[in-house]
């Protein structure tokens, strides 16, 4: 493994960690918040609802793979 791929791997592990789906869901939820806000619809509630759901899904995946 060369230096660059080790560097990339380190940052991937550091920020994304074991479950990359969490990052995908977080990006989708933030995108949906931005869409609602751009349409002048109250959007603050979306992330507090989405995060426990994402956490629950990720925990189920971790337990299944353990």
């Amino acid at each position, binding site marked *: 493994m060369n230096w660059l791929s080790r560097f990339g791997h380190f940052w991937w592990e*550091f*920020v*994304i*960690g*074991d*479950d990359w789906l*969490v*990052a995908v869901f*977080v*990006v989708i939820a*933030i*995108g949906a*918040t*931005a869409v*609602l*806000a*751009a349409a002048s619809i*109250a*959007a*603050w509630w*979306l*992330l*507090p609802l989405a*995060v*426990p759901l*994402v*956490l*629950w899904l*990720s*925990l189920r995946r*971790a*337990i299944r793979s*353990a």
Partner: protein
Amino acid sequence: MKTGDAFLVLSAFLASGVEFVEAVTIVLAAGLARGWRSSLGGLGAATVVLAVVVVVLGPALTVIPLRGLRLVVGALLLVFGLQWLRKAILRASGYKALHDEDAIFARELADAQSAAHLERAGVDWYGFTLAFKGVLLEGLEVVFIVLTFGSAQGSIPLAAAGATAALVLVAGVGVAVRAPLARVPENAMKFAVGVMLTTFGIFWSAEGAGADWPGSDAALLGVLGWVALCSFLLVRLLRRERRTQLRTAEVRA
């Protein structure tokens, strides 16, 4: 001090404290097994590298527009925080082994004692590298937290003050006891840090995406309470599920 600022200092203190406890364990193991000169040399070199990272990245972050910064930093903290929270919930519910600083210290010490001796310029390179790598990796997490928290809240010095207080406390206790800081409630601290990182991540990423929080900064308290409540409920739920699983396995055996 505003709600957001108080949270900022507390979060930086707790998150940095957890990382410093882990770094002290590695430096102690390297020092006791390979000599203090090498271990402290590694600690010093890593500190210099981390200081350079802060000096280069810190001012660069302050020129990015606040809304864009909060969006990116919030998203990063949310992903990062959910990682911490997930591990903390798995530990608290019994699905993952608890973090044991004594066991980690014993393992590091045994590895360091059995490694070959290679001395250059009066420095044992195994001890130097072990301390350097440990402090650099744990320190990078501290730098990440201080820079992201500080820049998104508009005060890197406040976040740095929280981290410095944690450093002084952990290093002071480490020097005094010269043993791994096993009595620090590390698992509980990691749980609290996961809750705080996730809270800030939700708050800033929503704000960066254009949402307005009812009550402005005071909404942080509500988000914090909500994330903590959900996390405790998940721990209870998974703990019960784990107990049922173990009981079923016992009955079958």
